[in-house]
């Protein structure tokens, strides 16, 4: 008699379906309310709000990418802002090359900052960025290759825990310093800005803004489905097993470092896509995106929403950034960083599983009480 569960597990749970439904509804409603309602109407969504929401969604995708490795593999990356920024720079380079003769110096090839620095020709690494498909590939490849090289060395040498976190922080700090330098050829301190067109559409136009918002929602939905598929596959079960007992995984015959590497590269590529969608909506990319504090902030978003829940990471990113927008514009503005710090401490102490994680735990306990499911396990202790 076979008692094994033969039903294929559902790809999306209830919360996943709600999440996707909300994103689809937002992707349709927000552009409609922006473009088809009169500016004075009560239902009108102003364009600046569309871009602001779009920015939140790219942060949500970034948080999702961090949750994939932190929540499911236990890799606490404090340098994920670097992958986001690299994706953003790849998109920024494309947007710079679209400016053409409309720049201040009117050079058809060289971006303004290069003319300003008296450069005579385009550096080799700027070639190809006038073509969108090339830039789109680089959005994924640049962070992906950095993650591959970094992860290959780190995971093979079995660097884990706080040491890994520190070197990810060092990585993003090194990139911050490098991108600050003018002779790196990425616009130095000022970064890349003053964008005009994306794929021939005026980047300031309402229609373009609405489309970028809808694309951000779509990217977040697809990113979620991808992560969800990964963590529920056999591959994903190995990832969770690595988080709980890495040595046991090695002694079960899996090469833990390869699993970590694949997850890390996928995560970096997702962060890069988030960065690429972020840049045209905020209109600038500069080295401050590499700053270590940015990467730490991502961790706060994920912790607030609920580590290891995917939906929670996205929710946390939107909530914390909404709070940031709200509080940094009023009389409370000088105290925002204290609030952010306080929030992280409070969540760690009182809500260690985050908002969504706590909700799941409550739901599982209720199911366990009625005998439908097993009690949730307390935070798994790392073995040996």
């Amino acid at each position: 008699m076979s008692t094994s569960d033969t039903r294929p597990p559902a790809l999306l749970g209830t919360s996943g379906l709600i999440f996707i439904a909300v994103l689809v509804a937002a992707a349709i409603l927000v552009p409609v309310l922006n473009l088809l309602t009169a500016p004075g109407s009560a239902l009108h969504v102003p364009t600046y709000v569309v871009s602001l929401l779009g920015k939140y969604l790219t942060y949500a995708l970034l948080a999702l990418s961090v949750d994939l490795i932190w929540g499911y593999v236990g890799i606490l990356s404090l340098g994920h802002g670097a992958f986001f920024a690299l994706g953003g720079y790849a998109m920024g380079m494309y947007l710079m090359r679209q400016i053409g003769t409309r720049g201040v110096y009117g050079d058809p090839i060289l971006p303004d900052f290069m003319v300003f620095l008296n450069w005579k020709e385009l550096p080799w690494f700027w070639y190809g960025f006038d073509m969108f498909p090339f830039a789109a590939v680089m959005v994924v490849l640049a962070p992906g290759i950095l993650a591959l090289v970094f992860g290959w060395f780190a995971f093979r040498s079995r660097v884990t825990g706080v040491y890994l976190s520190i070197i990810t922080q060092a990585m993003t700090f090194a990139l911050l310093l490098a991108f600050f330098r003018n002779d790196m050829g990425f616009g130095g301190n000022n970064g890349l800005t003053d964008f005009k067109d994306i794929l021939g559409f005026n980047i300031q136009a309402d229609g373009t803004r609405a489309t970028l918002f809808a694309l951000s929602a779509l990217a977040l939905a697809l990113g979620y489905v991808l992560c969800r598929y990964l963590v529920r596959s056999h591959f994903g079960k190995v990832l969770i097993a690595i988080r709980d007992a890495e040595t046991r995984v090695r002694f079960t015959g899996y090469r833990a470092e390869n699993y970590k590497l694949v997850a890390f590269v996928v995560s970096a590529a997702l962060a890069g896509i988030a960065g690429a969608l972020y840049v045209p909506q905020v209109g600038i990319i500069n080295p401050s995106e590499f700053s270590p504090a940015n990467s730490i902030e991502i961790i706060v978003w994920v912790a607030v929403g609920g580590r290891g829940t995917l939906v929670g990471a996205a929710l946390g990113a939107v909530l914390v950034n909404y709070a940031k927008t709200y509080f940094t514009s009023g009389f409370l503005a000088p105290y925002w960083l204290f609030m952010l710090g306080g929030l992280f401490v409070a969540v760690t102490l009182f809500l260690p599983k985050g908002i969504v994680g706590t909700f799941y735990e409550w739901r599982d306990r209720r199911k366990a009480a009625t005998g439908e499911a097993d009690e949730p396990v307390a935070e798994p202790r790392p073995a040996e």
Partner: protein
Amino acid sequence: MSDIETLAPETADAPAEGLGAAKTGLTEALLYLNGVTVTFDGFRALNELSFTVDPGEMRAIIGPNGAGKTTMMDVITGKTRPDKGDVYFNEGRTDLTKLDETEIVTLGIGRKFQKPTVFESHTVLDNLRLALKGQRAALANIFRKETAAERERIDEIFETIKLTEHRDRLGGNLSHGQKQWLEIGMLLAQDPKLLLVDEPVAGMTDAETAQTAELLREINANGHSVVVVEHDMTFVRDLGVRVLCLHEGSVLAEGTLDQVSANERVIEVYLGR
């Protein structure tokens, strides 16, 4: 068979290259340790340790704390490299000192740690699924589907370790004894030629201990070689197998439990008078 090389340790210095480092004819044992020495900061954890395990054999290893039992397992499973000595598997065909943990597992050596380590946030069923012999490559496992044969094999293992009714519980919610059995089940799922089992009954009730002895005998009867490290003498007696007593990193006595426990030196250093 007759042209067996000399067993003298100097043959260990013959050039050996990875998996191809064959010592065919050296031994017919499944596992062969000769003159293995491991030193940690001047402390000799293993001192010229030599013993063999035959195919299909079950062997119990006893000895006081610090006798080198766990270090011996670390050496066999590639966690620790010996300073000198030979460690061969598969009738001398494979030099284990040249391989890493994962390669050794793939060859067919499974290990159960002293402290039960199961995947706590996975269900018992998923624990076995992960351990089941099969695809181990990361990318291939993204698209892996469970086969009917795999489901059947998992059901068989559940029968053996008697955890069928706990299959949907989370590993972390099992009792200590159940975790130990699950870990043994996970070893079984890997289908190794040799199981190394470190103190499987520590912290178990008498009934659980007896059940564990039965489980290991059953596994052994199904053709797996087993090496059990254990302090519990009742359990070792239940197993009814040849016993090796280690002391200060080398073999003190070898034989049936009665022979070993009658040994003067064993009584002196381990069993007490």
